């Protein structure tokens, strides 16, 4: 296979890929007076157009992605990203629109935003939404800041946030930025929140409980109404991480069951592409009592059309510049409109069907630490294979040889050697079966040819990479220019 060099290694003095029109205004040297200028951008590449096209095309071909492979990365909801959503988002009316254009000239944009807010409210049972947060983690931050503002107004912001030990790492990290100390709640033997532990931990120093439902094991917190009761009766608020909303759309509305604040990940449930790690979007929904704390601006529908309201005295303020990851929001709206209420319910049903089909097919071959029913994802571990010296990372890497993207590894932390599998609703039975057969074959290989698994992948663009070396001797940029 051709090894694609770094662009800097393709560079040669004087090559160009872009030319500007001749400057059409009179050139004035005096406008550079009083400015410290640079002579060149040291090491900056100089390449031709065809070299750039081949460079990125070849690089792209080394990626696994949803368009090429089954991608059961648990907790990430790697579903198909519809092409039509890209098309409707690529319209000039959106692309060339400056964010500071007056509201009366961008009524289409504001209608997109307001419509999406209302649809998300209907789907989740929340009363109001902000679309500002750029991704789930910023949604958590926004939500927790609103909780803090609300409690502050009640007289005491409190000090502690309770978070289950199965939670995403972003939860404690976001709570920390809001000035809270994190106390971990241990999961019970069923993998869910232990009500006794919660009962003991929940006191008047606790601002909120952050839950994920279904949790990161794919298990529904079926006592959520009692959980909400305990939190509320002691003056706390209930935050829900909606990362796993794909399992619930049309089936369960968090806002109906005591959740005060929730964030969604539009790049998960609502199919906006993941882009290799963003841009995402993390809208936050709140119940009525918290709507006055939403970040500014808030979009309002008036008799004169849509307006942006910046005057919200109790608002937590801004969490980003301008309004939101607007193009991502258009894609999410297009997705909701092309599915309709019926279609959204089917998303939940088929994602849960696919996940359970995989779980049933692999039970016995791979260890399942928690045997409670699961929804959209299931978490196996490498416990059986470990006996032969084969770890979850080896299983994951071996899957690459079978043409499948590995599941999420080593998360949640409460399952040692975890393999977290989320197939989503968009996979064909044939692709599910191919994955199942691959997992079965690897379980067999782990017994018969463990070395083959331990040294995988064997067919990829690069062989297994030394991550320890990367961290111990960090090389974080090309330094070649120093050698010249």
């Amino acid at each position, binding site marked *: 296979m051709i090894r*694609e060099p*770094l662009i800097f290694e393709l560079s040669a003095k004087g090559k*160009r890929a872009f030319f500007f029109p001749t400057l*059409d*205004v009179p050139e004035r040297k005096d*406008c550079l007076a009083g*400015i*410290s200028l640079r002579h060149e*951008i040291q090491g*900056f590449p100089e390449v031709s157009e065809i070299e750039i*096209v081949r*460079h990125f*095309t070849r*690089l792209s071909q080394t*990626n*696994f992605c949803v368009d090429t492979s089954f991608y059961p990365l648990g907790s990430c909801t790697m579903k198909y990203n*519809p092409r039509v959503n890209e098309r409707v988002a690529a*319209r*000039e009316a959106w692309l060339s*629109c*400056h*964010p500071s254009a007056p509201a009366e000239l*961008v*009524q*289409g944009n504001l209608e997109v935003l307001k419509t999406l807010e209302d649809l998300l409210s209907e789907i989740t049972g929340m009363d109001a939404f902000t679309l500002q947060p*750029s991704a789930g983690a*910023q949604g958590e931050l926004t939500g927790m800041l609103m909780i803090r503002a609300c409690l502050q107004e009640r007289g005491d912001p409190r000090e502690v946030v309770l978070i289950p030990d199965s939670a995403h790492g*972003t939860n404690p990290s976001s709570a*920390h*930025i809001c000035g809270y100390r994190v106390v971990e709640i241990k999961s019970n033997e069923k993998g869910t929140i232990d009500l006794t532990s919660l009962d003991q931990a929940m006191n008047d120093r606790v601002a909120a409980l952050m839950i994920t439902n279904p949790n990161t094991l794919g298990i529904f917190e*079926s006592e959520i109404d009692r959980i909400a009761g305990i939190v509320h009766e002691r003056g706390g608020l209930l935050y829900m991480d909606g990362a796993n909303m794909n399992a619930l759309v049309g*089936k369960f*509305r968090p806002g109906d069951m005591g959740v005060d604040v929730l964030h969604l990940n539009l790049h998960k449930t609502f*199919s906006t592409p*993941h882009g290799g*790690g*963003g*841009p995402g979007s993390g809208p936050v929904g709140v119940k009525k009592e918290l709507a006055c704390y939403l970040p500014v601006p808030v979009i309002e529908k008036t008799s004169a059309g849509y307006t942006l309201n910046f005057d919200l005295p109790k608002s937590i*303020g*801004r969490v*980003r*510049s*301008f309004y939101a*990851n607007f193009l991502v929001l258009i894609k999410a709206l297009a997705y909701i409109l092309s*599915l309709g209420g*019926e279609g959204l319910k089917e998303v939940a049903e088929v994602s849960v*069907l*696919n996940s359970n089909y995989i779980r*049933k*097919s692999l039970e016995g071959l791979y260890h399942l630490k928690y045997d409670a029913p699961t929804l959209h994802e299931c978490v196996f571990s490498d416990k059986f294979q470990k006996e032969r010296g084969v770890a979850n990372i080896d299983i994951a*890497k071996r899957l690459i040889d079978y043409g499948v993207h590995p599941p999420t590894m080593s998360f949640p932390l409460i399952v040692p050697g975890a393999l977290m599998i989320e197939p989503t609703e968009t996979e064909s*039975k044939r*692709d599910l079966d191919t994955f199942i057969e691959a997992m079965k074959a690897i379980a067999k290989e782990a017994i018969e040819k463990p070395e083959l698994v331990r040294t995988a992948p064997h067919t990829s*663009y*690069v062989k297994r990479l*030394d*991550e320890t070396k*990367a961290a111990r001797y*960090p090389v*974080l940029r090309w330094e070649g220019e120093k050698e010249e």
Partner: protein
Amino acid sequence: MRYIALSEKDKKEMMAALGIHSLDDLFCCIPSPLRLHRELEIPSAMSEMELIRHFEALGRKNSADHFLSFLGGGAYPHVIPSLVDSLSSRGEFVTPYTPYQPEVSQGTLQVIFEFQTLVCQLTGMEIANASLYEGASATAEAVLMAYRLRGKPKVLMARTLHPQYREVVQTYVKNLFVETDEIGYTEEGRINVKDLASKIDRETSAVVCQTPNFFGVIEELEEIAAIAHEHQALFIVVVSEAASLGLLKPPGACGADIVAGEGQSFGLPLSFGGPYLGFMACRKDFLRQFPGRIAGQTQDAEGRRGFVLTLSTREQHIRRERATSNICTNQAWCALRATIFLETMGQAGMRELAYQNIQKANYALGRLAACQGVKRKFSGPIFNEFVCEFEAGWEKIDGHLRRKGILGGLNLETSYPELKGCGLLCVTEVHTREEIGRLVGAVEEVLQ
């Protein structure tokens, strides 16, 4: 339903394998009283053709795209080479996630590594990360990082830092015992060094300064850096118009400790404010406190070069509440577009881009300032934005321009009450001499 790949036969076989009779049985773990026992009130599904028509109609409700716009202020109209759309829209770049599995993500990882290198070269800093959300939250992350490094309660922000960036910093730090104070500006439109010297003390963690600043004026960074360093404070340089880096002396060569900014100018359309591209770069010795994803070079089992996400012990999924940031998903695809943009521009293109901006903006400023009743507000050198004070008042000018199909700029009074009658105008390489002439002509009409 759209996007479901199971046939009815497949479903039946799978349900039989699970021993269930209806898909609803799969949800028995949700107690019935908790379930939604009605259909969602969402219109029924639209076909592809209906969807396209629907969004065409929504798009027609906008009229801003028909205007000749001189709006800037943190979002800039720039050329986007054809390569950017064409290459970045490949499914192999659009549809994977964060490259957790490096062996099947070398494309994404090598792009990040190249992006980090380009950001270092542009800013003159030693290390850069894989991206942050956008300029304002990147600035907030820089302030949080400085606070972790110095542990002192005070942060000084220039009043010429983008007003929205200042608001976002406030939102991020307000619960962390950090107090912020503002540094005023001079008649040149530059940071008031005397004011800075009087407010900085041993309790200051960081000084935050934007260049070109919100008024479009280019700051003299060395003097500010010297004052910050004299008090052991870190110097954070914010760049909201990254195209300026093609020509201006890099912040790293002017004493910056951390550079944070907005990369929208590098191949990202205005898009009503997002998605954009936050970036951050800093000195190597701050690595352990650096937020966000970082790609690093390593070797595979056969000794070949490869790239991985690295130093993840800084990050939330390992360190949880002690992480350097809560960020997880960032703006990888936007960083890809910036990488294609920058590599297409190359050494000569970046310089030409910046040069045309500075020439055209100065030309427009010269023509406007020559009009009766229009005054150049600040005397400091500008990049591609400038402030003019209009005797007739901004509303009158803006109203007339709008009737002429022109969005003239930002009303500065909104964020700076002391700048009544002032507008912030942006002129870049996309504006032709004829268009600048239209702007000047329309302004003259009001004044006559």
